[in-house]
């Protein structure tokens, strides 16, 4: 049930009207109506019907997750400055080194810490850690 709240919040947050956003939102809403159907069957039917669902949501087969999408394909990288952890960033798995560096340097805490120092070297161990050397 907590996951349903999370999904509802995410749907409300996506405001875009481009094709991709509309598709994503509609897919999320349809899925939501299926996920809440065992708990709130009346509301679920009303939503399902509005979204053009066929028949009853009560008898529709349970949605199947696309494994490629369901897979967690981001990683959390700690950022160290001179050997001390100063923050964390979440990036897509296998993101090119240049992009990882940019995201790391844009991190608020890291930025504050690097103020007035020169960045000498950035070492990115792919999908593991970012080390910044500065003085």
């Amino acid at each position, binding site marked *: 049930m907590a996951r349903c709240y999370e999904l509802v919040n995410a749907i409300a947050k996506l405001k875009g009207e481009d094709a991709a956003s509309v598709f994503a939102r509609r897919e999320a809403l349809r899925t939501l109506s299926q996920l809440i159907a065992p708990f709130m069957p009346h509301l679920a039917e009303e939503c399902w019907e509005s979204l053009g669902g066929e028949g009853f949501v*009560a008898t529709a087969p349970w949605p199947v997750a696309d494994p490629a999408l369901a897979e967690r394909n981001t990683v959390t990288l700690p950022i160290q400055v001179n050997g001390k952890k100063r923050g964390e960033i979440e990036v897509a798995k296998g993101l090119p080194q240049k992009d990882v560096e940019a995201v790391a340097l844009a991190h608020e805490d890291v930025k504050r810490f690097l103020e007035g120092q020169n960045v000498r070297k950035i070492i990115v161990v792919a999908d593991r850690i970012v080390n910044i050397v500065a003085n």
Partner: protein
Amino acid sequence: MRSIQSGTHIHEPLVILGPGLRVPRIRGWVLSCINDNATRQRWVNMSRYNHREVEPKWRGRWAAANIDRALAPEEARGKPKAYILEMFPYPSGRIHVGHSRNYTMGDVIARFRRANGYNVLHPMGWDAFGLPAENAAMERGIHPKGWTYDNIAAMREQLKLLGLAIDWSREFATCDASYYKHQQAMFLAFWRKGLVYRKKQKVNWDPVDNTVLANEQVVDGKGWRSGAPVETRELEQWMFKVTAYADDLLAAIGGLDKWPDKVRLMQSNWIGKSQGAKIWWDIASVPEELRAMSPATGQSHARDPIEVFTTRPDTLFGASFLALAPDHPLTKTIAGFRPDVAKFIADCATLGTSEADIEKAEKVGIDLGIRVKHPFDPTWELPVWAANFVLSTYGSGAIFGSPAGDQRDLDFANKYKLPFKPVVLPHGADAATHAITDEAFTGEGVIYNSHFLDGLSTKDAIARAIDELVKREAGEATTQWRLRDWGVSRQRYWGCPIPAIHCAKCGVVPVPEKDLPIQLPEDVTFERDKPGNPLDRHPTWKHTKCPTCGGAATRETDTLDTFVDSSWYFARFTDAQNETAPFDKKLASYWLPVDQYVGGVEHAVLHLLYARFFTRAMRDCGYLDLPSGEPFASLFTQGMVVHETYRATRQVLKPPSVHQDQRGKWVIRGTTVEVTPSTPAAWGGDPADVDRAQRDAFKEFKLPPTWLTPDQVDSSSRPPVIMGTDIPVSVGPIEKMSKSKKNVVDLDAFVTDFGADVARWFVLSDSPPERDVEWTASGVKGAWNFVQRVWSLTEDHVEKFGKQGGSASPPAAVGAAHALRQLTHRTI
């Protein structure tokens, strides 16, 4: 302020009725929790979703399409089966929100299984026999049958309001003759199989309700309903031989891996297998009176050894006394010449027969004047007492007291100054200094002070002691069970008649199967002052002919314990319309066991045990192909819905907060008020001079101490007050919703105001399902907001982009849209 009839609900009209507002009535108590105008306005403006139109519409469509019907095995076409069942309700009158959790939980599982491709059986019925119907008959002159079926009709409508995916075509009530007819046939089959017998048994007798009470119905030695001190009586009872399956009922618990551990433990403890020894204690001396009354040959209390059961023969050298149950034959014999022993027995009879009652009572006893010889040392003599803590139903109704190793024995020995010595040395303790005074040592250790057992561990000493007992012909190894056979006779009208006939010539004869059902007569009377069973009092019903000899005979007037009705209903649901058999063997074998059983933990022992017994008996009588004999593969015990309790304290009131309802009763917010009429002296004068209103002003009104419903209370102020007044209310503990505490929220009023989905979402939210959930206004509001939010998001989307809006295949998604798709698929 309009006057309110006692028992009705208070409806507060909402302040503003704008076009967006489709919820004109909201329960006062919830409103009062959101009593700031701006908040209330915001909440109301969000009400875009009209559950009052939507919910009945979908229930109608589901029913029309018959989507909740379970498929016959041959229709299922490879779909796996899922039998989901909630413990069926007793039709007490109305369903409150507290009950709804049980059904909602089962329904969520049933709907989830259906969506996942299962052929789902999710039925509903009524556990409809029982005492409350007879009490209603006595108190209000309504026939139990009418009362029961009226309640069923009302509760069925309430359950339907919840939108449960139930196959209603399988509904039945256990008081339908079409149901209990098969129960009677099954009773006869069990009888033929040797699983039914008659036995004189000691029972708890309620002298006011004139009925036998189960041990659980005796509270502090008093009848749970009447409050009268319970008596012990001997009655010929119909018994089900549950103990025939004792071993299997215990062993199979190990395989019930989808049952809560707590319930499995309770079942094991109830069956209570213990390994131990029987010990025969030779008589050393008896009172002269006993010797005089004993026959010279054959059985004799003056000569026969006393048999004792123990699980701890290793502590034999710590023995201090023997104690007999108050109703042990020897105790009763001695009472024949000792009035003090007779009085002791009579006092114990008022105690109640349950272990819990006996556990609570102070341990008392009386020396019977008999001495016995120790089995390992004939020169050592021990006294024999009668004691109230010894159960006649456990072992042979006699124990040996080993005070150092048992707290009850120790308390008893200390009270009566009986000498004893410790014989088990805890690990690490010093034999020279280890002493027992007020606290027994019940654990294991090394045996000492015990001759040939010295130095052995508890386990080895038990084996050695039993060897020695066998060698001396003073005892043997044996197994004891706590589990008893099930007495099913009830001296009640509103139950399933037992299909047996009593003939003076032929004895007890089964009713021929062709004569079933033996139906309850409907022309019966219920009067408080006429004791006993209305079936027994009926002028003609019990008179019949003996099926064997044709002579005049009488019917059995006892009816079956209602636990029998609920011991096989789950099997009936698999083929509920079958007229010739309880159920078709193939259908029952297809659907059983129940895949998910949901119910209250209060049924963890008896109902489940009896159902397990019945399923085995049905299997062995050929009704069922179910090798395990286990009816419920998975069990879930759900928590309760609890709510604050409200109580008004006694206080003096003044009009106009008090007013008369339509029946002329003085009430305040639906609660009846005590009125002391005004006297002419109070307002001084001739009645003719004073109008009614003035006279009322001089009456004395008192609010009696009483429980109040959440409806009657404005809980937004602390302390809460009676709605619409400033009369304070004290807030009691948060308790399980129950009628007596009035902390119930009525289901259909709630559904009318907020919708079934809000109720369903709320009772399942906020706490783990096996724990209690507290019913709070803020929790309800949270569920309400969630419903509104889901609908608003959906409606907004459809208004902008249409029903089918957007592309059919996913466009390449990036950024936020991609993240939402990921979350969607992850949530699945």
